[in-house]
């Protein structure tokens, strides 16, 4: 029986996809809930940025009653794939709950439509004692995506989910009934891939746990970045640049616990000429970053928005250091709503009283946190507003015998 790959590329497929895209995101920093209509309008208005071959949404804070469980939102080729996944999960995790992902009939979405299902999971009790829950669950996500045929995990975070598929952004929004979902923090992506077909799994946002990335760009350092993250146990299976960006940021932010600003300094560092104009500890720090994170540097044009939930829900926008892809930021409601988008039209069309609009500097992040609001506008260079203190290293360097998480 002919088995069609719907959710991810068949084994052995290794042609990379390059995308042009539209990205949009916003957060109400007081946590004020509203429907997804607004994010849908933001993304659908930028029609020239997509060609009907993929779109997606990441929405945070939508499972308050099950917020302590990992929600694996799955794309599956068929029921058989769902059984394989359920078998695997039941052996390695505790399945607390499972249900179909609510959808609406939408003929315009590209057929065939995968089976859409989600699991709420917790690591097995005995495993919780042995190792970090996230490291454990990461192995499970990597295994499902790389080894289980016909199954792809769209998102694996707590109290959030990614909804993505193959079609125009408006149709994908209609399919997943985004306008009926209530939240305070939305991200959206529309895709213009340069090669078909768009696998349902190939659309953005890319996600690992609570980290979601929407990405407009093309990574010229893909081979270098891929080999770097593979050293730490990540497996790149989707043949797109955005996947590797997600893993780099997961590595720097969640596992190495770098402050967001510093992670951005590693991913989009300043030029050596600029670095050498610093002094003292700031100079030492910059040199140390460039030396340590050489293979993590993301080269090539990009503008990305990153969503996070731990420890505080946060939205981050970053461009490459030449700013070869657009990103604008805007506020409304006394600065309590913050918007990021590829284009200003997305902000203007939604009927908000837009107060400030600005273009963050190349390579400088916009950071917004729930509660605090705007932490960084991206208008001053990194370290301009910070002090740096170098202290002697406390713990010994990782043992040479440490093996990558695999």
């Amino acid at each position: 029986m002919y088995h069609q790959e719907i959710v991810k590329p068949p084994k052995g497929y290794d042609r990379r996809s390059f995308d042009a895209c539209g990205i949009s995101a916003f957060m109400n920093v007081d946590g004020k809930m509203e429907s997804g209509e607004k994010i849908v309008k933001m993304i659908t208005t930028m029609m020239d940025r997509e060609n009907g071959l993929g779109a997606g949404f990441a929405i945070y804070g939508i499972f308050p009653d099950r917020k302590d469980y990992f929600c694996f939102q799955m794309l599956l080729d068929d029921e058989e794939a769902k059984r394989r996944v359920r078998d695997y999960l039941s052996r390695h995790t505790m399945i607390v709950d499972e249900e179909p992902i609510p959808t609406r009939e939408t003929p315009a979405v590209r057929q065939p439509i995968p089976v859409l299902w989600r699991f709420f999971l917790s690591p097995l009790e005995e495993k919780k004692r042995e190792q970090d829950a996230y490291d454990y669950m990461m192995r499970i996500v990597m295994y499902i995506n790389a080894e289980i045929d016909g199954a792809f995990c769209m998102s694996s975070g707590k109290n959030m989910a990614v909804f993505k598929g193959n079609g125009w952004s408006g149709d994908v929004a209609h399919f997943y009934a985004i306008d009926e979902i209530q939240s305070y923090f939305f991200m959206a992506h529309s895709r213009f891939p340069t090669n078909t077909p768009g696998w349902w799994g190939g659309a953005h946002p890319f996600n690992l746990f609570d980290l979601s990335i929407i990405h407009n760009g093309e990574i010229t350092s893909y081979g270098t970045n891929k080999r770097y993250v593979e050293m730490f146990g990540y497996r790149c299976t989707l043949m797109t640049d955005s996947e590797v960006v997600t893993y780099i940021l997961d590595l720097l932010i969640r596992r190495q616990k770098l402050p967001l600003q510093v992670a951005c300094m590693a991913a989009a560092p300043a030029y050596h000429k600029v670095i050498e104009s610093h002094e003292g500890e700031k100079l030492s720090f910059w040199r140390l970053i460039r030396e340590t994170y050489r293979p993590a540097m993301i080269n090539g044009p990009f503008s990305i928005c990153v969503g996070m939930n731990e420890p505080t829900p946060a939205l981050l926008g970053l461009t490459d250091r030449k700013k070869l892809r657009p990103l604008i930021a805007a506020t409304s409601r006394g600065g309590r709503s913050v918007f990021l988008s590829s284009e200003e039209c997305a902000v203007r069309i939604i009927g908000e009283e837009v107060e400030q609009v600005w273009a963050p500097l190349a390579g400088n992040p916009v950071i917004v946190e729930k509660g605090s609001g705007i932490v960084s506008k991206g208008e001053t260079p990194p370290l301009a507003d910070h002090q740096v203190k170098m202290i002697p290293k406390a713990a010994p360097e990782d043992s040479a015998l440490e093996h990558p998480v695999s």
Partner: protein
Amino acid sequence: MHVRLKTAPRFKVRISREVCRHCERCTVNCTFGVLSHNGTEIVAEHDKCVACQRCAIMCPQQAISIIPGDIHYAPHSTFNERQRMIIYEQASSGGVLLSGMGTDLPYMSIFDDLLLDACQVTNPSIDPLREPVETLTYIGRKPKSLRVSQVNGSFIVEKETFPHVVLQTPITVGHMSLGSISYPAMTAILRACKEVGIMAGTGEGGLHPDFYQYGDHVNSEVASGRFGVEPKYLKNVAALEIKIGQGAKPGHGGHLPGEKVNKLIAETRMIPVGTDALSPYPHHDIYSIEDLQQLIGALKEASRYKVPVGVKIAAVHNSAPIASGIVRAGADFVTLDGFKGGTGASPRVIRDHAGIPIETAVASVDQRLREEGIRHQASIIAGGGIRYAADILKIIALGADAVMLGQAVLIAMGCRACQQCHRGLCPWGIATQEPNLVSRLDTDISTQRLVNLFKAWTEEIKEILGALGIDSIESLVGNRDRLRYIGPNPKIAEILDVKHVGE
């Protein structure tokens, strides 16, 4: 017992008699005893000619051409001219034939089977004349990650640096000792490296005190003969490198023929004048990987942990596990020398028939270190017949952090690759210690030529990086995605983990 056998000369010196003014400059310039004046005209002993081209260049009338010897053997593929010459020579001398430079056999070049990518439409390329394209490279161990916490408006950074060398461009000069090359040649190399901001190897000859001033650009070699290895040598330099092997003669130690050991060399190496400086094949205190770890530790102690300590090996079949062991033994960089690497003196049989290509060595070492999660612990420097900037870019894309040059540097200074380095008769003053020959090499001009070479190649590197849409060299290291294989053997593409053109 030497039994001379008269054979057809490889080359002939053709002198245009109408134009020759009998100035006899050619007879003075030839160092191989080919030319003399018999009272009437210039005469040549053709079978001594090695095609170094010195006479042809120096003739003010341009009256001289070096042409192939015109005695033709009946064609025979198995016993071709080269093979016949080797047998004649060995039957005459009864010895091991030596040669200089890298192998002259027509082995394929994997570089020539690799093509680079460029960005168009979906991704803009970068013009290095208008935008920054960075080539700065760090050699040494790197932290696996940084520990940074944020307290209010301050970043608290756990300082973790390992000693490293900063190269302004991913080029280094490999180890060519004072002894194998002349004093002005060595001076020119060090001065050029200082001006460009890179480092050069000392070779096995120790570091002459006159060169301590270039210490920040010196990579000191600790080879099996331990020539010249003493505390001053270890402390005033930018890096230390333990030479386990060399691409031109895997498994063999260094070799400086006695002809080239004059007073100056004898003093620097601490050996008697005129003795062959034959380095032991293994270090006699390194018979296993744990012994290497001890030496690395000893060097780090002796240099007070101020400089990176690396290890150089010839590229051989087991390069990947060997390199992995070297890194785990504490090396801060691993230098891989491919089988096409050059030498001042090596038995032809080893030079021409042992080792593996640097392209596959780098690919497998880089891959192995990543698989073991230790790629960050050491930089990879690669060399062995690097010919031009395209080779540099391709070897970096295969996984090297920087390259080391040898033969290209000599050629830039005027070497014609006649492969007679071991005889100490270099007419260009490069690979000799004869004072009247050494004086032929102008230090200032040679320095400028090397600076020109390094700068030209750096510009070419930037041009290609820009075309690749990459604005900093670190994003090309190990980026095999940007190469495609166009050669005849798909297995090589598989080993390099490079896609085939069209994929």
